[in-house]
């Protein structure tokens, strides 16, 4: 099968050209009428023709024919973007949260960055835990809504490796604008390596930052595999340092920014469900260093 984005691209081109030709035709007729029939150019009363049945039928039938062609093409492309009967090589569960994304590879969870192997048909199983979100990465083609209580499916197929940005397309509340996605398309080998690493428990143990994390309210919402923390309201942090951004795109991910974010998430993402947790400077340093080590 072709990537869905290609099917949409071809169809958009065809519809775009047809629309452009109609646009030019109508505007040209309009400009011609204004130029040709100005009262200042012509004397006397105009001829009073009021209708012409053949003409009316013609300009009813012609658009109908064009639309019939477009509709047939539409049906073809609809089948194509749904996978055209090709079974997916892998399913990934994607869950929308206010205002971040959870991706689960058979129980191995990550957030906001979706890794997929190149040239491989993937199906996303989309749902939401709160309001309606919509998964949209423009360069990969169609979007699909994520509804609470329902699972939708979206076929992904990326032709080239690389990183593709997108974001939530259905208004989902105060931080809708900062619910960004990055899709990282890798070779199968790179992908397998990445997934293997994600399946491991936390890379560091017994550091000071881990103590800060486990003895504060962080654990109510976040999971770090290999520790007692198993909250599910916020992103899984087991390999948080392997991700490129903090807060679903609001900050680049490094230790200094992580410390600033931990000190006051509301400053960077006002309305975010992550509260400001009062921590000492020393605890903040330790916590940021710990999270920065969770590759």
């Amino acid at each position, binding site marked *: 099968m072709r990537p869905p984005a290609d099917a949409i691209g071809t169809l958009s081109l065809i519809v775009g050209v047809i629309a452009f030709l109609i646009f030019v035709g109508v505007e040209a007729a309009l400009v011609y009428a204004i130029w040709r029939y100005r009262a200042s150019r012509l004397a006397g009363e105009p001829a009073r023709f*009021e209708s012409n049945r053949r003409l009316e039928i013609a300009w009813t039938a012609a658009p109908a024919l064009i639309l019939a062609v477009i509709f047939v093409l539409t049906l073809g492309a609809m089948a194509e973007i749904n996978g055209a009967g090709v079974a997916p090589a892998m399913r990934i569960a994607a869950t929308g949260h206010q205002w971040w994304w959870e991706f689960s590879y058979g129980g191995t969870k990550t957030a906001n960055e979706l890794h997929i192997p190149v040239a491989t048909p993937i199906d996303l199983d989309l749902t939401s835990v709160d309001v309606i979100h919509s998964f949209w990465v423009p360069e990969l083609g169609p979007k699909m809504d994520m509804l609470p209580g329902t699972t939708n499916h979206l076929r992904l197929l990326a032709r080239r490796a690389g990183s593709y940005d997108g974001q939530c397309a259905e208004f989902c509340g105060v931080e809708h*604008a900062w619910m960004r996605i990055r899709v990282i398309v890798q070779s199968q080998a790179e992908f397998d390596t990445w997934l293997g690493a994600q399946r491991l428990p936390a890379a560091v143990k017994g550091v000071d930052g881990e103590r800060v994390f486990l003895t504060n309210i962080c654990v109510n919402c976040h999971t770090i595999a290999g520790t007692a923390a198993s909250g599910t309201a916020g992103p899984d942090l087991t390999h948080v340092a392997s991700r490129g951004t903090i807060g679903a795109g609001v900050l680049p991910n490094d230790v200094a920014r992580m410390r600033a974010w931990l000190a006051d998430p509301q400053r960077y993402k006002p309305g975010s469900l992550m509260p400001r947790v009062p921590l000492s400077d020393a605890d903040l340093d330790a916590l940021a260093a710990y999270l920065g080590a969770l590759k």
Partner: protein
Amino acid sequence: MTAIPLWVRRPAGERVGWLRTVDHKEIGVLYIGMGVAFFAIGGLEALLLRAQLATPEATLVDPETFNQAFTVHGVTMILLAVVPLLVGFANYMVPLMIGARDVAFPRLNALSFWLSLVGGIVLYFSFLAGGAPDTGWFSYAPLSERAFAPGTGVDYYILGLAVNGAGTIIGAINLTVTILLMRCPGMAISRVPLFVWMTLVTSVLILGAYPALTAALVMLFVDRQLGGHFFDPAGGGQAVLWQHLFWFFGHPEVYIMVLPAMGMISEVIPVFSRKPIFGYGFVAGSSVAIAFLSFGVWAHHMFAVGLGDTENAIFSATSMLIAIPTGVKIFNWIATMIGGRLRMTTAMLFAVGFIAMFVIGGLSGVALAVVPIDLAVTDSYFVVAHLHYVLFGGTMLGIFAGAYYWFPKMTGRLLSEGLGRWHFWLTFAGFNLTFLPQHWLGAVGMPRRVFTYAASTGWGPLNLISTIGATILAVAMVVFFVNLARSLRSGEIAGDDPWDAFTLEWSTTSPPPPENFTRIPAVTGRRPLWDRKHPESRDKK
């Protein structure tokens, strides 16, 4: 039927005042005044949105304020500006155009205006009561449920829209009865002016569509205030149900807003082409076709919801079908101009501008009916561009055409043609500069309703152009308001029939007397005033 005199002559100069009036013309002016005021407010909200989006990662307004502003902007423009403006012109003009003394139920007419206005005031009261609604004009559940919108904003949205909608429904009943029963002798339904035809179709659409909204609002109110679960999946409800109900109202609403404006230009174009409308029957009939189809296209707003391919294909087909009667209208307007003697007055400029811009909105609408294209660009700025080409490039330009055309009838004075030209060209430039780039922004990935965007997206330059366009559009509106104010005070005296027009409203004085006509006219054709002025070449039939 025989004409029953509903109107009673009062002593000369006696008026009951704006609060107590039941005169259709005064109520029409009240509606138009309400529409103009809310149009200005909605415009200022739009400027705030554009100012925030001019540059990436701007912090001019906080996210919460932005979300309230776009929600209230949408509701204001659609329900408190455009609909009252159209209903206002219909209120004023329909009885005059069909040779009646007033609408069928004058007191009910006053009630519908005041309900509409109170609905708007209730909505705006939310700002004082702790925050405006912030869930978008279509207020999707479950975001609008109390769990996610705990403030009172959505409650004011529910109450405001329900009250405003009641006014609109009552007004539609009134106009329907008026048009069906109060036409003057000789005015068969096949002879009524097209603006009246479109008003009739629109009124029937309102009667079908608005109750679905009212029902949805009541259900949401039950969810929020009485512990219901209509739209709450956790309680066994369905989030998508809200969307079905809302768009069952919402898509006919588009035609409720477009058809009367099409009616306006169907009056303006023949008069300034000095020809009868081409294909009267097809223009009127295509409106009926649009009305029927418009109740069968709502789910094209929901292609990305995951209804399934079969449903999507059906709604794709019906949505494409509706382009056909719409195209028929455009061809007929152009055919009316062909062979005519065109006077390019400001009213005519705006009417031609309507056609030129509405074509773009119509074509992008066909693209959105193509499911795979819709899945790519729905909920993006492409849709924002599309809907503004329909509702501003279409409806608002049509309303401006109607305003320049009928202002002399309503006030006795002409609007300035000089300022009118400035108004038109600034509007044309500002409008296209604002909304044309938004097609590209949507196609490359900018979702609608974002309070900002990352600098790395590269969306900055096109957004800046869009904001500059919005500023020009604002200047154009200032020119229009100056024109209104100046012409009201010192505009050129219009006389009864400044445009050498065709229809009955121009046969009475400007402004018309309270009883509209000294004698109820009798007509023999579609252009009664033409027949009267040119007895030697009356229209056939």
